[in-house]
């Protein structure tokens, strides 16, 4: 990957590398890679060329002219923008010659002709490429005495991003990012010459899920993010590298705080994962960690409701509940749900507590919205393999909504023509625009649709072209996992060599399942646990960062389960609808309040930074588990988080190489091996009679919903779109109601009222409702026992 490799001493025999290009940079011979831009080759050779518009992850445009250097290709030295030309053999580059310096100083002087010198009040001051390079490569003074340009400041280009136009140097980074990387070309240069500026179209804000990246890559202070604006000076920030756990892509971040308060997350460029990008939900979710609503002390239920208590008494209460439960119904009357929101260490400690100390096989890290755990035992693909496969098959939720940075990577694969996407979906997704083929299916019929599609000669020819990666996840929460599982097995039967990238969503779900948060022998899965609890067979339900009432698709089942469980212990960062019902609530340390490791969808284990002090007396989940185990008579031997990391490496299949030392030295984390999982049996999809008056229900998540972390992040909470029922525009006549009107949406089980809307991404005969939004809870309509959900939509 890096060009420095070729600098290393070659073995004795001379191997002529066809990709080596010999160039002279500042008088020194250097071997660059064919196709490298001069600016990149120079940087690799240790000669930094100043620049503003050039960005490693985007195409070069040569807008800012800052990277002008003298280049001699045999015709005499001439000034060339080094971001626009690849190296050629024998090229002589002078980055610091008098002519190069004069050009660079001239550009700085021109850029500063209109750029205000308001660095003392500018958020970028202190980490500003323009400021830094004015010092390092500027003339030090200006000949311009004219009045500078003034604009109204700032203007909001989205709910999250503000623009101070007078600071903009028109480098095209934000606009290029929006168009090239995010695919949301909602900001653009308008007008020309001296009046050129970045704007949105009136009333069409830059409402991209990736807008925060433009703030990070802006080389001046023109773009600022509302959650950080005027919060801190860069030199007051302390930073630690970590991994975002908002979803399971595992983007590398720099967690920044000042005075022990989280203030900003920045994307870190991890080549196999996020390429430096973050989604806005991940980037701004620190607000939730800082929320005043965080739990600070353990709570126990008394006659007067929850009352704060000490850790000792809460632990004693929890131990009593566990021993009472075992006495009443045996170990298997205890069930543990969750673990997917914490670290590997948290999950491992809880898995040890559940399986080895308590002795229950009823453990699940999913909440009825995932796939059978066997999907992790398949021939797993990495994100890199997926985004370089000849064919990517999507049998997954809308990745733009659920795993946004994976969406960026796969979109990149499609638009750069590396891969062709074949998409199976019940409803158009963010990737439909880029898919080579999109095959829509009616929920429940996906296995048949997959088989029929594979039989088409054109599809078969495409699949024969090379590697195939299947991205598998739950596209629809209003159907059981059976349809998708059957379709996945049908795909694998036809394509035994294909690799599978699991599109499970919760931050560390892959890690949690891998290290043991899954059912043991003859144990129950999450739906089984909930059913047993609802039937009064669970003496003690333990929720480890799990909120079944909000997250389980079947709302009625979740409610009955929590009502039916005799005792409930919850470990959580907030009081949620579920932890509100618990008898004991332990306050958990949140993201950036604890160290550890996390595992992303491809099995890549990376570190989590402990950056700020915990809120109140909260503790990491693993510590809670270790302490309870101790009190139950088993010392797990976990004195520090490193002990747990070491125990995982020693005990977990596939994690042998994941040691603290290995993680320390590996910039991009360590790819864990695939452990062994029970193979998935082909499920039967029992579809009832389809009543043609009904709409088949599709329920899926939007990026912003009423999840606990989002509702406690004020900047993000207001971005949730709210609930409504969407049908295809041509189906509206069938309903006999108008767009915007309230309609009854009913199943035999329940009726809810939602406002009616149209969306041509919804297929005819189906209705789509976003999950976990404000308004009526669509979960009331979902039955975990049914293969699919058919609803009737009627005017009130």
């Amino acid at each position, binding site marked *: 990957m890096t060009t420095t490799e070729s600098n290393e001493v070659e073995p004795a025999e001379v191997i002529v590398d066809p990709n080596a290009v010999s160039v002279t940079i500042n008088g020194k011979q250097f071997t660059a890679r064919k196709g490298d831009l001069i600016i990149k080759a120079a940087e690799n050779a240790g000669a930094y060329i100043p620049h503003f518009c050039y960005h490693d992850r985007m195409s070069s445009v040569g807008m800012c002219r800052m990277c002008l250097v003298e280049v001699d290709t045999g015709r005499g030295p001439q000034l060339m923008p080094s971001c626009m030309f690849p190296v050629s053999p024998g090229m002589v580059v002078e980055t610091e010659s008098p002519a190069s310096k004069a050009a660079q100083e001239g550009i700085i002087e021109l850029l500063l002709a209109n750029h205000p010198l308001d660095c003392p009040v500018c958020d970028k001051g202190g980490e500003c490429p323009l400021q830094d390079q004015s010092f390092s490569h500027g003339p030090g003074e200006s000949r311009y005495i004219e009045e500078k340009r003034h604009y109204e400041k700032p203007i909001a280009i989205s709910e999250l991003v503000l623009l101070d136009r007078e600071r903009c140097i028109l480098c095209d980074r934000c606009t290029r990012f929006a168009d090239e990387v995010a695919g949301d070309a909602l900001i*653009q240069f308008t007008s020309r010459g001296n009046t050129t500026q970045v704007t949105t*179209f*009136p009333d069409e804000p830059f409402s991209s899920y990736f807008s925060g990246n433009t703030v990070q890559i802006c080389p001046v202070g023109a773009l600022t993010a509302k959650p950080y604006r005027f919060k801190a000076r860069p030199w007051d920030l302390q930073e630690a590298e970590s991994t975002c756990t908002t979803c399971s892509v595992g983007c590398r971040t720099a967690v920044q705080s000042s005075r022990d308060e989280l203030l900003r997350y920045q994307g870190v460029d991890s080549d196999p994962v996020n390429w430096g990008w973050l989604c806005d939900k991940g980037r701004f979710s620190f607000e939730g960690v800082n929320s005043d609503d965080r739990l600070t002390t353990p709570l126990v239920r008394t006659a007067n409701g929850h009352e704060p208590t000490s850790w000792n008494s809460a632990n004693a209460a929890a131990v009593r509940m566990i021993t009472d439960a075992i006495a009443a119904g045996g170990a298997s009357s205890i069930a543990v749900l969750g673990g997917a929101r914490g670290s590997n260490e948290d999950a491992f400690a809880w898995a040890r507590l559940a399986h080895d100390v308590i002795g229950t096989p009823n453990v699940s890290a999913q909440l009825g919205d995932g796939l059978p755990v066997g999907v992790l035992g398949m021939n797993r693909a990495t994100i890199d393999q997926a985004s370089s496969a000849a064919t990517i098959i999507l049998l997954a939720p809308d990745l733009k909504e659920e795993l946004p940075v994976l969406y960026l990577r796969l979109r990149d694969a499609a638009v750069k023509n590396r891969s062709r996407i074949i998409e199976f979906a019940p409803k158009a997704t963010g990737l439909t625009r880029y898919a080579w083929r999109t095959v829509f299916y009616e929920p429940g019929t996906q296995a048949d649709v997959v088989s029929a599609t594979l039989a088409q000669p054109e599809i078969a020819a495409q699949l024969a072209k090379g590697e195939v990666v299947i991205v598998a996840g739950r596209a629809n929460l209003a159907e059981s996992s059976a349809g998708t599982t059957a379709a996945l097995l049908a795909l694998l039967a036809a394509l035994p060599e294909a690799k599978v990238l699991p599109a499970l969503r919760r931050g560390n779900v892959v890690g949690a399942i891998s290290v043991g948060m899954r059912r043991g022998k003859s144990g129950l899965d999450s739906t089984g646990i909930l059913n047993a609890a609802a039937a009064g067979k669970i003496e003690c339900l333990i929720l480890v960062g799990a909120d079944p009432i909000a997250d389980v698709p079947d709302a009625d089942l979740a409610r009955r389960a929590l009502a039916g469980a005799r005792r409930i212990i919850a470990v959580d960062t907030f009081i949620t609808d579920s932890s509100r019902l618990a008898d004991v609530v332990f306050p958990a340390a949140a993201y950036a309040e604890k160290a550890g490791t996390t595992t992303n969808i491809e099995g890549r284990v990376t570190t989590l930074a402990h950056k700020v002090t915990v809120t109140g007396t909260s503790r990491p989940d693993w510590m809670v588990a270790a302490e309870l185990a101790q009190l139950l008579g088993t010392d797990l031997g976990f004195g520090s988080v490193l002990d747990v990391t070491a125990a995982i490496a020693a005990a977990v299949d596939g994690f042998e190489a994941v040691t603290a030392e290995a993680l320390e030295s590996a910039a991009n984390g360590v790819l864990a091996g695939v452990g062994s999982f029970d193979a998935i049996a082909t499920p039967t999809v029992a579809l009832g009679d389809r009543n043609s008056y009904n709409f088949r229900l599709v329920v899926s998540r939007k990026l912003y919903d009423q999840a606990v972390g989002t509702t406690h992040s004020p900047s993000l909470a207001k971005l949730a779109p709210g609930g409504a029922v969407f049908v295809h525009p041509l189906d509206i006549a069938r309903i006999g109601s108008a767009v915007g009107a309230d309609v009854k949406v009913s199943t035999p089980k329940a009726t809810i009222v939602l406002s009616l809307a149209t969306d041509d991404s919804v297929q005819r005969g189906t209705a789509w409702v976003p999950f976990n939004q404000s308004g009526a809870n669509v979960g009331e309509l979902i039955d975990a026992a049914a293969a699919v959900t058919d609803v009737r939509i009627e005017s009130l």
Partner: protein
Amino acid sequence: MSRLTEDNVRVAHEIISRYPRPRSATIPLLHLAQQQDGYVTNDAIRHIGELVGATSAEVLGTATFYEMFKFEPVGKYLVNICRTMSCALMGGEELMHHAEHRLGIKAGSTTPDGMFTLEHAECQAACTEAPTLQVNYRYRFRVTPETFDALIDDLAAGRLDSEIPAHGTVARIRQHIPAERGVGAVPPEDATNAPSWMTVAEAPK
């Protein structure tokens, strides 16, 4: 008066079909919108974006690069008076002064009856004929206050309708390119034959 009319949508589709990629039709469609309304409305921009598969912001960015697209209502006649060197020496400034008095408006604005918009222009490339002006981009040479007044009188009375159409009109007779002469929807990288109007010399052996 905003989105393209049904007739113009038909024309738009014909224009789009001439290009290998729909986006290439953006500027002709902006002309079409300006012809329809006298200026390019925001609704038209949004509509063009839908037609060519671009965001409104992209169409706006492209459109605003060009000074001859107007984004606010313009009079029926756009009068551009040159103020560059030759015209300035030959009385361009005085002509503008006179025009402002005659029309009762400052340069850059439109008469209340919506007939005339007066603007400064940079060199119109007819220095030998200075001072010059253009009415909807039709030249008038060696303009004096008297000939200017006569021009305004003629325009107001409709005597020049046959020569100078309302602002925004690109051509009064629209050209229709038969399908077999169009480039068609073949992206350049997929084109195997040269377009029919090009004679391609045999490559030297």
